[in-house]
């Protein structure tokens, strides 16, 4: 399973309200689950950084 797939699988478990909450900070910028989803889905550079960080933190 790729990191992206890992993320989407975890994301599907997140309660709706929790999705507005911060999951990671990249370059001092707080990123919510929801924003992470958008960036990863759209395969942006930020999305790649988020995936890397979430993997290192063992959140995905």
């Amino acid at each position, binding site marked *: 399973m790729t990191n992206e797939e890992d993320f989407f699988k975890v994301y599907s478990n997140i*309660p*709706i*309200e*929790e999705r507005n*909450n911060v999951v990671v900070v990249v370059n001092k910028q707080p990123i919510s689950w929801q924003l992470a989803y958008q960036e990863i889905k759209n395969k942006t550079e930020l999305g790649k950084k988020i995936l890397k960080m979430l993997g290192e933190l063992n959140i995905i």
Partner: protein
Amino acid sequence: MISVVCVLFSRPDDDITLNYLSYFSKELVELSNSSGFKTINKESKKANKKNILSLIKNQCPNLIMFNGHGSPKIICGHKREIIVNSEENPEVLKNSITYSLSCASALVLGPKSVEKGAISFIGYESDFALGKDPESEASPRHDKIAKLFLEPSNILFSSLLNGYNVQTAVEKAKNKMKENIWYLNTTKSFPEAIYYAPFLFGNYLGLVAHGDKNASI
């Protein structure tokens, strides 16, 4: 000769956190009484080292509940007096099932007490977090958030009082914690609910049982 089950409670209340623990555990004392057990309840300043150790020695309780501050090696009573210390007297808990509602005491004291003859030791391997409703002032009775944190603890001990074994009691408590965490994550009844969830989850992770998990009273 039929032996009566003896249950000992240590319930100091000399700060706001302990006051909450004491208030919520009151129903457990009542349950123990109504179950026909020999119930020894030491609260406030009577939850001190001299009283508790003397009672353990003389009454040989089958089941003990400690409310109190703690750390990996100790459980405290009134005014933070150390009652049980893994390096001094872990053997006092021998032949009992103990539930310690105090920070981290299951990390070192728990296994040490079992090594020295405790039947089981149930407690937390990390700090026990207690959430509080900011609108309830210091009134535990109206505190809907504290209830979510302490209800699982009550379920654990009431399960033991009702004859369930250690493993089942812990499972029931953990299931209730999960239920309450899900409630905090999804309820719209108060906007700050979701922010308490991680702290209750910490309690879920920290709750463990050492010793004989099949033991019951």
